[in-house]
């Protein structure tokens, strides 16, 4: 496998030092905003605009953001948004797995009329402009009472999670030799038991990767909650932006603290599935 790096013949030449410098430059650029956000989140209100790097850090902001007091200050119910995000995204991923795994299995195992159309339709959702769907949904949700509900969000988030789950898992099922399940059939197991006993355990990493990645993308989504929720089912992404526009008074330190909290779950999840990330992000097109 090409996973390991090329055998290292270390040479400290001008070229290799230069290359390291270049890469260092990128990572200064790449990490600086994150570091700065962390710093800002540790500042007090009086330090937030008057200092850059030298200040006395405090963890108070995180508590404030999550509490009732923060809501009074900024009129953003951040802990509520956090809970909504978990419910929306968790629900959406669950639905996508329940529906997507059988579909991905069918598309990966059999060549049947329409399977390619189905897959392409799924992919087109990934690339379709969200508003094309959301604007009519905005009208429909307002008429049916799905506006600003978890159910409404779970439904619309399928647009994000379903294509991801189906495409990633299909590529995993395709990699699995059908003869394994055939052997189980001849051992006397029904198709369902063969699937559960043989196929499912073997694609478990794929399922985990697809589920977590779908969760990340659902979590990071902004357009859907922005338009289809108000206060009840609104999410972290919307809540973080609300800090900026909130009530005339600027609480940049609280904004940064909220941003940090909102950014943390995807980061943690992404690091746990880093091995499968490339394959997931490319919808199974690149099997790293």
């Amino acid at each position: 496998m090409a996973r390991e790096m090329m055998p290292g013949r270390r040479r400290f030449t001008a070229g290799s030092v230069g290359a390291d410098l270049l890469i260092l430059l990128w990572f200064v650029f790449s990490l600086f905003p994150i570091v700065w956000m962390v710093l800002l989140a540790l500042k007090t209100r009086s330090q937030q605009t008057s200092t850059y790097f030298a200040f006395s850090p405090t963890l108070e902001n995180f508590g404030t953001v999550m509490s009732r007091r923060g809501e009074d200050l900024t009129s953003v119910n951040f802990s509520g948004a956090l809970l909504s995000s978990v419910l929306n995204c968790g629900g959406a991923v669950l639905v996508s797995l329940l529906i997507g795994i059988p579909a991905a299995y069918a598309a990966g195992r059999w060549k049947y009329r329409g399977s390619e159309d189905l897959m392409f339709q799924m992919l087109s959702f990934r690339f379709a402009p969200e508003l094309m769907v959301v604007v009519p949904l905005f009208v429909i949700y307002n008429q049916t009472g799905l506006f600003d509900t978890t159910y409404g969000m779970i439904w619309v988030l399928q647009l994000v999670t379903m294509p991801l789950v189906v495409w990633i898992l299909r590529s995993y099922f395709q990699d699995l030799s059908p003869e394994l399940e055939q052997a189980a059939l001849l051992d006397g197991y029904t198709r369902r038991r063969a699937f559960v006993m043989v196929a499912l355990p073997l694609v478990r990493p794929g399922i985990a990767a697809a589920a977590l990645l779908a969760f990340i993308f659902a979590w990071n989504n902004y357009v859907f909650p922005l338009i289809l929720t108000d206060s009840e089912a609104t999410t972290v992404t919307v809540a973080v932006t609300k800090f900026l526009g909130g009530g005339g008074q600027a609480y940049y330190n609280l904004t940064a603290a909220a941003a940090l909290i909102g950014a943390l779950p995807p980061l943690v999840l992404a690091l746990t599935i880093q091995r499968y990330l490339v394959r997931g992000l490319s919808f199974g097109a690149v099997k790293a």
Partner: protein
Amino acid sequence: MATLELEGVTTRYGKVVGVEDLELTVGDGEFFVVLGPSGAGKTTTLKSVAGLVDMDAGRVSIGGRDMGGVEPYHRNVAMAFESYALYPQKTVFENLASPLRSGRTGTYDKAEQSKRIELVTTTLGINHLLKRFPRELSNGQRQRVALGRVLVRPADVYLLDEPLSHLDAKLRAAMRAELKQLGEDSSTTSLYVTHDYQEALDLGERIAVLRHGRLVQVGTPEQIWREPADTFVAKALGQPEINLLDGEVTGGRIVAAGGAVSLPVPSGVDVGDRVRVGLRPRDLDRADADPDGGAHRAGAERLHLRGRVHLAERLGRLVELSIEVGDTEIIMVAGSDHAPGEGDVIDMAIDLADVHLFAPGAPGEETARLGSGRPR
């Protein structure tokens, strides 16, 4: 215990033919070998029997029961896959226990499971590997586990897809002997697929030869060897391959190799004006050097040839000789004692009964056998 019948079985993959109009009947308890090169439809035959592929036409019956529409898990057949198809997440023991735990191959308590597994793994020489995972095994060990997963359970039919192909030569010989014993002891109908003619001749009670998804010949090893249906079967059996010479029929004689090969047209064989003469390298004897070495039947009429040794290649106790006979080259195999050197002129002979006559054809074209050189 069951007979196995295939009637007009046709299985295609899209436009690619797997098997076409296959007719086979395997007797109850028979050890039946399907022989053919890769792509001949051997695996498709097995999978059609197992119900793992959808047939386009035809009928499979096991024990007289039509298997049309019957799911694989209801057919009570076991199969050893060429790819092994071992469950990677299960240990060898669990792999072998899998058919015993499904509830469709009988009911076995824990002790009985262990006993059966112990028995079969001892036979196959893999009883020290029970706790290993498939990825920790060599290909030969995996293949034996795959075979074990079949033998561990009772079934109406055993389907064995090249079960010895990945074993090393020594182990293969030993396993072949085991399988032969097993085939004789057990009363389970077995369909055994291989591309190795020696395996087929050694193991098969009967052999079917497949080519391009079609059945070419069915018969006992003796029949297949003595009376190959056509040049394809003749070439498939025997190493080195059979010598095929283009001959002409003139004045009641078949003449080939520029006159160096000449035999009377045997009575009862309907030849035209052209014919192909087939001589197996191992059927040719040295007529000059070791008169008792050739196992020719006493009093049998023989065809005599003379040629110059062009190349002599030692293969252990035997020597493969390329001999210029007339205007062609003939391969023969001789004992390495007193083997001729390159450039020597030698005399050869072959029983007329071992001379195969085939219909004429272009190079590469397979033609039917007309008969032997011995008058009927």
